[in-house]
């Protein structure tokens, strides 16, 4: 081919193109692979939140474990933005071949209620919940309140005076705040919600006296708690948190509220069942390893996994609970 004279170059470009096309068509379509060959190439996990956040950490720990079990590379991609809408939508639109998975978070059950996207829990095949975190209430170290009751009374006497933060408007910790107010029998605007870019930003505003209360997961506030800058007054789960055994739950203090954020791996709807089974098996193996447990516990998460069946139920239950809360808190009309 390389001995052609210049005059004939053009026809050879044409020829080369035809050859290329033939090769491409030849290996193009018809490369369906069966489930027992899965996975034969790199898998990517879309994380709908930014690098360095807690969902990112869970994604990376999971990816690392999955990589060892499945024997292919597993990459984490941070598609952050739009309060999780961008990443969740990209995950739902991906080819349902098991090679693009999404680390869903509880926000999947909120964004469609808020009219931000059509993408909702039904666009995904749940595989496994990797961790759950409960909500908790932090106040400043020099705050006059000692217990959750003090906070409740103060809010009741001065509705609308105090401010709370922890995440963006309509995020999981905003819902936690709304749920707490509802359980206390207080109106949704009794605490003014100040949106922040995340728990870390909210906590920073808390100690610089910009706001009064922060709702976030207990682990997110642990460094400042250890530094003596904040106090943890209540946990919004059914049982006490093993990391903070001395902190009472809201239920113990007479306010019946529990709320959990979670992160779970899911595939786009339409992914073949055998591939889903293969992935769930692999994830079960990952969750059972000592490494996974140590890494997760050190990062401040309890290993609290749920299989695909439970995951589906949680998605459905959350969808109803969050939809109701969003309406009660007048975040959506």
């Amino acid at each position, binding site marked *: 081919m390389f001995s052609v004279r210049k005059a004939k170059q053009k026809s050879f*470009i044409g020829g*080369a193109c035809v050859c290329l096309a033939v090769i*491409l068509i030849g*290996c193009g379509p018809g490369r369906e692979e069966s489930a027992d060959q899965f996975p034969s190439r790199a898998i990517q996990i879309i994380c709908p939140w930014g690098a360095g956040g807690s969902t990112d950490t869970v994604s990376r720990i999971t990816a690392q474990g999955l990589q060892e079990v499945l024997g292919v*590379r597993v*990459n984490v991609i941070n598609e952050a933005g739009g309060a999780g809408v961008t990443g969740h939508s990209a995950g739902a639109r991906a080819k349902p071949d098991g090679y693009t998975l999404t680390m869903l978070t509880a926000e999947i059950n909120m964004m469609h209620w808020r009219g931000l996207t059509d993408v909702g829990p039904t666009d995904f095949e749940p595989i496994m919940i990797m961790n759950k975190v409960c909500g908790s209430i932090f106040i400043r170290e020099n705050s006059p309140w000692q217990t959750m009751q003090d906070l409740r009374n103060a809010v009741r006497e001065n509705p609308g005076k105090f401010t709370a933060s922890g995440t963006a408007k309509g995020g999981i910790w905003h819902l936690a705040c709304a749920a707490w107010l509802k359980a206390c029998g207080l109106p949704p605007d009794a605490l003014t919600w100040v949106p922040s870019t995340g728990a870390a930003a909210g906590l920073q505003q808390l100690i610089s006296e910009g706001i009064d209360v922060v709702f976030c997961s207990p682990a997110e506030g642990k460094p400042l708690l250890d530094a003596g800058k904040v106090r943890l007054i209540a946990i919004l789960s059914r049982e006490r948190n093993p990391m903070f055994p001395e902190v009472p739950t809201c239920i113990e203090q007479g306010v019946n509220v529990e709320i959990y954020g979670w992160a779970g791996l899911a595939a786009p709807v339409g992914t073949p069942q055998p591939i889903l089974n293969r992935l769930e098996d692999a994830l079960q193996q990952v969750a059972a390893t000592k490494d996974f447990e140590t890494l997760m516990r050190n990062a401040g998460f309890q290993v609290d996994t749920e299989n695909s069946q439970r995951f589906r139920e949680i998605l459905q239950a959350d969808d109803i609970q969050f939809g109701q809360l969003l309406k009660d808190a007048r975040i959506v009309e």
Partner: protein
Amino acid sequence: MKSDRILGTLVLIGGIALYIATMDFPGAASNRPGPAFLPRILAVLFMVSGILLILHPKPTGNEKEESQPGNRVKVAAMIAGLVLYSMIADITGFLIAGGCLTFGFCLLLGNSWRVSLLVTVVLVPSVYTIFSTVLGVVLPVGWLGW
């Protein structure tokens, strides 16, 4: 002078369009402005600066850059190639789409087809390999399977 007037007109139209686009935004809350606040400030900024630019166009300091009409066609071809790439990359994969883009652009710049082929064959697969192995960025996988 003329080009400043055109720019000013575009900016003015942009400002007006921006303002119109904010009309159906939700209104202000009791103690703060609503989501239309910053966009409307910008709309006014665009309108004012557009008008100022139309009224006081500055003569451009340096000569307009020489550009031959043939080269404009080349720019258009390059943009078309990029758009085409973004459409087909997910289907054909990076190797084919990126290869076509690079090969085409090389030819466009007047390289012989051999040089173009060489550049393409060296550059595209190595970019793919580096990104997918070292950098953890998986470029679109397509018909070729890698």
